């Protein structure tokens, strides 16, 4: 039984990784299209990718925006999740439904609406130019991250046994102390998962970033999409391989340094 379980797991892992693995193999192929059996190994696309400026410019912007948007989303989402799970107030169920709105609505709609809001309300009423700016783009990303953060934290809070918190409060601890010493540590896996999801949602976001674009700079997924529309070479495959290697390295280091794996 256990062997069957392991075998099933391995097959599913293979499925998850299949698209990525073949992209990595393609990045080393000398010809632009995939041939099976593979023709050989070449680093020509890596050289090309390293020299293509827009990839690197946009990656910097994407990292900054993803980090910022995730932090803001966590700051907004944690109290909201606590409120929804541990408290009862009028409009709670409505809030839970509405919290999903940013990812249920097609990004083109949200993007167009945000641009209208920026230009018609912010500019003309508040005299603040937000459209076509990095803060304007980041606001959109915060909206995209927020539902992920909230849902993951709600699930985490629901799974955490409130008995420990109750015991602490019965012993006289104040709510804030309970939050800091008991709830948050219990929530660590969920917090890490929420942070990861938020970062990924922002880093990989395409459609909203297209509409809220900042003149002169793009985010990485937009640059990749534009490149793939117009050029037929595996430079993007090489870039993706580098990204995977990079994030793998970061996770491994985080694990060695902070015991990341124990958190999830």
């Amino acid at each position, binding site marked *: 039984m256990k062997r069957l379980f392991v075998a099933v797991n391995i097959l599913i892992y293979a499925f998850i990784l299949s698209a990525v693995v073949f992209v990595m193999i393609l990045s080393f192929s000398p010809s*632009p*299209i995939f041939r099976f059996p593979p023709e050989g190994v070449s680093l020509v696309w890596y050289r090309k990718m*390293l*020299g*293509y*400026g*827009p990839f*690197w*410019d946009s*990656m*910097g*912007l994407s*990292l*900054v*925006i993803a980090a*910022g948007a995730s932090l803001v989303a966590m700051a907004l989402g944690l109290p909201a999740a606590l409120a929804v799970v541990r408290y009862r107030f009028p409009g709670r169920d409505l809030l839970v439904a509405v919290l999903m709105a940013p990812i249920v609505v097609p990004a*083109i709609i949200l*993007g*167009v*609406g945000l*641009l*209208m809001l*920026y*230009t*018609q309300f912010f*500019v*003309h009423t508040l005299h*603040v*130019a*937000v*459209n*076509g*700016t*990095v*803060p304007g783009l*980041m606001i959109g990303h915060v909206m995209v991250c927020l539902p992920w953060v909230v849902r993951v934290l709600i699930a985490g809070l629901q799974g955490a046994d409130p008995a420990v918190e109750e015991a602490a409060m019965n012993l006289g601890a104040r709510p804030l102390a309970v939050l800091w010493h008991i709830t948050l540590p219990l929530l660590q896996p969920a917090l890490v998962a929420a942070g990861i999801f938020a970062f990924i949602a922002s880093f990989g976001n395409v459609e909203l970033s*297209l*509409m809220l*674009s900042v*003149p*002169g*700079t*793009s985010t990485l997924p937009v640059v990749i999409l*534009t490149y*793939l*529309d*117009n*050029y*037929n070479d595996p430079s993007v495959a090489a870039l993706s391989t580098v990204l995977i290697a990079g994030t793998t390295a970061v996770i491994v280091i985080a694990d060695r340094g902070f015991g990341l794996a124990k958190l999830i």
Partner: protein
Amino acid sequence: MSTPSQSSRVVSRRSFLRQSLLAGSALAASRPAAAQTRILSIMINAGQYQDTLTRLVIEPFQRKHNVRVLVTPGSSTEMLAKLRAEKASPSVDLVVIAETVAVTGRLEGIFEKMERAKIPNMADVEPKALNPDGFGFASLYATAGIGYNAEKVKPAPRAWKDMWNPAYKGMIGLQDIAGTTGVQFLITAARLHGGDEQNIDPGFKAIGELMRMGASINSGKPAEITNLFLTDTILMSPGVENSFYKVYAPKDKRFTFVLPQEGFFAIPYTVEIVKGRKSGDLVYDFMNMQLDPEVQQGFMESILMTPVNTRVKIPSSLAALVPEARAALQFDWGAIARNRAAWQERFNKEIAR
């Protein structure tokens, strides 16, 4: 102070770090710090056009006028959606956009009429390239005809009507009519079967027939078409641009281009200026440089675009690939813009299944 550029550069890893810091500091500012340097914000089509424009116009322009040009690459239709949404306070000054989309933009008051006197090179421009109502102009033309795999397609196609030759069953890839060449082919199909822009039924029927003969639909994007040809998924496609032949290898017979007998499609790269822009008259200097004979010649030689500056002569060595713009098939862009929505819906329901 060196300016960030969107073109390929050999050593750009340093710019990665600089851009991260710049992006971080840009968080505090609404627009990048530009106390001394003026800014011009443009939206253009990505790909080879952007690369060539950067090399021939943007970089020299930045140096000559001490201006920073911010480029937003994208597809024409997405551009208009953005411009429409931020109409109350646009973030862009100038666009190079497809004519079908430009028509809509002019109607909606997104674009502004030009003061053509401010563009010295305008005197040399082919009159047909100018918008008759005082708006923008075509800066260049791309040329579309028939692309086919000469190794596998026999007999070689010579005209648009050849598409309906039963010998080509299952070989043809048609482009979605969301793109300029797709809708031009629809109208051509209509004209070949007794209709035109006002009577498009014959066009839909004819294309329906092609679908029954095994044709497939693609998005029309350059990389997708190349990939379809490389993998032999399609062997022929009407509406492919003349630069197609250079895509993979110049002598590769799999990428053969021909100008059809009935006439070719000219795709105008229309330049328009945005109403309510922040950069004022800087756009006129930019447009003047776009029309410089050297620039137009450069576009012709590197990506086979047809110049509009009459001073630039098309050499006989390129005549087979770069035809004179006035020999192109003419289309009623206004009618196309008006009917677009209905045609696209019909296309989605009847053809693209």
